């Protein structure tokens, strides 16, 4: 057998001792550890919105939109009313307008 320092010298006990001293734990960085912990707790533990908060925000949004639509509708109606007023004024001012015939006397 070819010469090697391990032929006779390396018993099971020696090999296990060498393995223990060679295979050592590798430490992750503290930055990584803290960042991962933060992501675990943040994603699953401290939600920015709960279900009830979401519902309240949604309902408020609907109300605000409805209010906005209501106001918009009022402006629209006011605008239409104004336009109608202008049209009516113009029709009263027309010179070709025939006076209305009164009742016919017999």
């Amino acid at each position, binding site marked *: 057998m*070819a010469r*090697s320092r*391990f032929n006779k010298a390396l018993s099971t006990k020696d*090999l296990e001792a*060498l393995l*223990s*001293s060679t*295979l050592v*734990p590798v*430490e992750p960085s503290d930055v990584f550890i803290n960042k991962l912990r933060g992501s675990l707790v943040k994603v699953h533990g401290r939600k920015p919105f709960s279900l009830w908060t979401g519902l309240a925000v949604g309902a408020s949004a609907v109300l605000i939109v409805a209010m906005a639509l209501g106001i918009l509708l009022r402006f629209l109606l006011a605008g239409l009313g104004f336009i109608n007023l202008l049209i009516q004024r113009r029709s009263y001012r027309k010179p070709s307008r025939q006076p209305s015939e009164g009742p016919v006397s017999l």
Partner: protein
Amino acid sequence: MMAAKKRNDPSALTREEEKELVIRAATDQEAFGELYSVNVRKIYSYIYYRVGNHHNAQDLTARVFHRALKNIHKYEDRGIPFSAWLYRIAHNLVANFHRDQNRRQTVSYDSITIPGYNNHPERETIEHEEREILLEAVQTLPPERQELLILKFINHLSNAEIGEIMGRTEGAVKSLYHRTLVSLRKEMIRLDVNLGKKLEDK
């Protein structure tokens, strides 16, 4: 020796403490955070030796704990440590990683600092060389034998715990371990002989 190492670890939980934390973790994220703090370094070390670099080790470690958190409510206590469940998740993710990478699971442990002694430089050189040969020999082993050595010597798990992770009986793990040591010794002799020949040629 390994049990003593476990007891001396200040971050280690007693079995009862761990059981209580696991039950609470299903609804309390802070409890899961404690389990995370106790186990993250062990899982990271295991994954690092399986993939060989910090970048992938970080990615896979994160995936392990996110998956664990997602499925903690399904966890059943079967009388083995909670960490064995985490190791099992890590084992599966690493296997998927290697399959997706489509390459044999040989990794280079270039960034590992081999510990040495400062008192006797000559002895340090010899022991450093022996450790390098050992690491090289470990890398030639099949993946499951490498995993066995990692779980035994880095994570200090018992044969029963290792069996749970690797899907084998305790007896099968013991048998595999002895065959692994035999293979390792043969490989170290071969590498040492080759090294001697290279030096003679010079």
